[in-house]
């Protein structure tokens, strides 16, 4: 930082720019004066012309520009000639993106540093001071503008004051116009979440309504039904409603976790479920099925820990205890996972004897 001290400068005199004796720099200085700028320091960064230091800086900048050009050519060469199509097992094409990145970065860095050194090292060092003009406009200007605005208001207002009919008409006419502008923009978007014919918030793909009144089978993601013996003891399986597109995102609230509990855990789970009004009788043998959609934010609560019988949601770490009606025991979830009432049809496949008796998925204001 310069330590030049600056005491109240003698304001430079205006000059006549048509004076032929003036150098170009003097004309520039006249411009600075008019822009209220004072050039305090303006000096070459080198001692004398063609100094060793200057030559070195020039060489470096030239070198940087040349590197930039070479790297840019390299980028184009890689871009055009390097095998870029993805092939499994081929590592050559894996280098395509890194090579583009490195060559482009070298080129851009080199240009950047060349320009920066040019500006910082070759151009004359300069300290300029410009005056600020802060604060309010002159008070008379303020007053004139303020009065003008009030006058404009008066002009409109008096018209209305003297013509009450106009007043009512304007109010009556303009308000609906505003609504007209807003209505089609917003109105088309509004969607009733509680349509009587499809109460999507409260039904899932396991509702018999979705299956022509028949009970819905539990299926794998490829649509094949499941027999009890398909799930080994202590094992679990993600199941979907056995309806068309049951395993797709069309039924995003339907994925369910079917668990085959060990005998002692099953006993405990059954006792807890029996004590509960909604879950009583929903288990089938040692099998229990809970909605996989976390009651907190709707992620699939998919990490099942066999030893502790806990189900963990990987999004926000809510934990549910399987043996105790999937009550939340840790994390931000407040509500248990709904239990799917299980049964087995005459062909020996799992079915849902009804839809979930609790609302599936994240909580909301009007959930019953």
């Amino acid at each position, binding site marked *: 930082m*310069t*330590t*030049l001290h600056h005491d109240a400068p003698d304001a430079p005199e205006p000059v006549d720019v048509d004076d032929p004796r003036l150098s170009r720099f003097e004309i520039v200085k006249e*411009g600075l004066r*008019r*822009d209220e700028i004072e050039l305090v320091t303006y000096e070459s960064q080198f*001692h004398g012309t063609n100094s060793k230091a200057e030559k*070195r800086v020039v060489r470096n900048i030239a070198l940087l520009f040349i590197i930039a050009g070479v790297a840019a050519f390299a980028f184009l060469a890689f871009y055009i000639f390097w095998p*870029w*199509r*993805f092939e499994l097992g081929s590592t050559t094409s894996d280098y395509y993106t890194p*090579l583009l*990145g490195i060559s*482009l*970065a*070298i080129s*851009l860095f080199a*240009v950047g*540093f060349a320009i*920066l050194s040019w*500006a910082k090292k070759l*151009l004359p060092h*300069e*300290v*300029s*001071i*410009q*005056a600020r003009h*802060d604060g309010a406009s002159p008070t008379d200007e303020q007053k004139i503008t303020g009065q003008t605005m009030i006058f404009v208001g008066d002009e409109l207002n008096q018209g209305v004051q003297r013509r009450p009919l106009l007043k009512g008409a304007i109010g009556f006419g303009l308000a609906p116009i505003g609504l007209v502008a807003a209505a089609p923009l917003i109105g088309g978007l509004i*969607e*009733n*979440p509680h349509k009587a014919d499809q109460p999507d918030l409260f039904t899932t793909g396991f509702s018999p309504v979705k299956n022509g009144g028949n009970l819905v089978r539990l299926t794998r*993601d490829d649509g094949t039904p499941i027999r009890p013996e398909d799930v080994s003891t202590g094992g679990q399986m993600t199941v*979907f409603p056995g309806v068309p597109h049951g*395993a*797709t*995102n069309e039924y*995003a*609230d*339907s*994925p369910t976790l079917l668990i085959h509990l060990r005998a002692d855990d099953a006993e405990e789970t059954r006792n807890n479920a029996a004590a509960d009004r909604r879950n009583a009788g929903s288990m089938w043998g040692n099998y229990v099925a809970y909605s*996989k*959609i976390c009651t*907190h*934010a*709707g*992620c*699939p609560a998919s990490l099942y820990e066999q030893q502790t019988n806990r189900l963990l949601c*990987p*999004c926000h*770490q809510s934990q549910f205890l399987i043996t105790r009606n999937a009550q939340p025991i840790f*994390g*931000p979830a407040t*509500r248990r996972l709904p239990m799917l009432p299980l049964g087995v049809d005459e062909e020996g496949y799992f079915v849902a004897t009804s839809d979930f008796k609790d609302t599936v998925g*994240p*909580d*909301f*204001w*009007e959930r*019953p």
Partner: protein
Amino acid sequence: MKRRTGKADLQQAPVTFAKGVDERFQASTPLRALLNKVFPDHWSFLLGEIALFSFIILLLTGVFLTLFFDPSMTETAYQGAYPALRGTEMSQAYASSLHLSFEVRGGLFMRQMHHWAALLFMAAIVVHMLRIFFTGAYRKPREINWVIGMALFLLGFLAGFTGYSLPDDGLSGTGLRIASAIMLSIPVVGTWVSASIFGGEFPGHLIIGRFYIAHVLLIPGGLLALISVHLGLVFKQKHTQWPGPMRTNTNVVGERMFPRYALKQGGFFMAVFGTVALLAGLFQINPIWLFGPYRASEVSSASQPDWYVMFLDGLVRLMPNWQIYIGDYSIPPLFWPAVVGLGFFTTAPMAWPWLEARKTGDKRIHNLLERPRDNPERVGIGSMAVTFFLIGTISGANDVIADKFHISLNAMTWAGRIGLIVLPALAYYLAVRICLGLQQHDREVLAHGVETGIIRRLPNGQFVEVHQPLGPVDDHGHPLPLEYGGWVVPKKMNRVGALAPAVKGFFYPVEKPSEAPVSPGMPPVSGDTREEITSGRK
């Protein structure tokens, strides 16, 4: 009529052209004012520029991506170049993102540039905002620009979220699911909001198309407009500057915009662009083909959003399961961190400039920045906010930390909950103490001079350290007290020129080292006069 020669015509052409332009637009005076405009210079003034340059990169790469991306949720069976997913049912959006990554020349590179530039954009906004806050640059007359800056963060946040939701991969679908749950949690109108935005029940068939138009038109349009106003105000109100020699509240000390300042900006843009290119080339980001298409039943562990959303995710994780029941209705706990929290933390700070001015009763115009240490209370409050944000962000990855460091996940959650309350208060206390300590040291050096490291033994056996006064001394050689100027106080001898300046040149000196200034009271020590230091005992 005299026929003019072609040569004279050519020389005269630019002048004629310039005159023609001026006759039509009266451009001369404003153009000269622009060329001459003085900008103050400091490295910390470049942080906002990084955000601006990242935004330009985002526009350039983003336009390229739109040429290939298909914002449709129609299901299709993938038949592209990536064998692991061939035959998988997925949305057109995901399939076209895969196509862009694998079957468009340089497509993956452009995608990664876009994503890295987005992360850099948000990071630069945050760091720039911290610079503005801790130096008091938001004070009158610049309050509105502070508000616009906060709005830019919020818009950037939304741009980022809508952007990484578009590929419709496993991770982004999970993010959308959570977004839907957040909308559902709003009291009274939650289900209506979610149904209206998603066009029915989650996920529906519309959301990618709607997010797409928001991401490529509405939000960038808002960003562009606000950035223009932001820069226009910086231009109109002139940049703040640090205190220092010649610098006052009523002037700007620096260099003219052209050529030097503009050239440096151009070089810096190239460097930022190069950084993004390097990141995009070497560091994989958002490898969507590994996540698979979004399935409501699937999620991987360690599902983290982009870094600027992590604080929100962390707050959601830390929120205790407090549900409020009002008759038959209830407010889920998700509402508080995700809706109230995000709303509060992005809008409440907008009022800060006026709150501070009201508390201090300060209605003056401030063009000189304040060193953070000179306003300990502001630094304390800023440190509280930073600590809160950091704990939220760390908690957003608490499952990964718990896994990598073998810590109980529940312990991480509890540490976050307690930390969120205790640590900001601690940060406030520490920040204020550190500021006061630094202030005190500045005043000490101004009063007594720089510590030289030279110990002198007085005739009475007492040891004292010699101080180099920074200004005039009185008759006894004691320094006269100096006024603090709001700027760096030299605290080492080489800062006051006692040591020779560094010799230029990397491998060998390129110029003769200039003579070190010699203080008359302290001649330089040379080999001949140096005495061997002995224990003092003979």
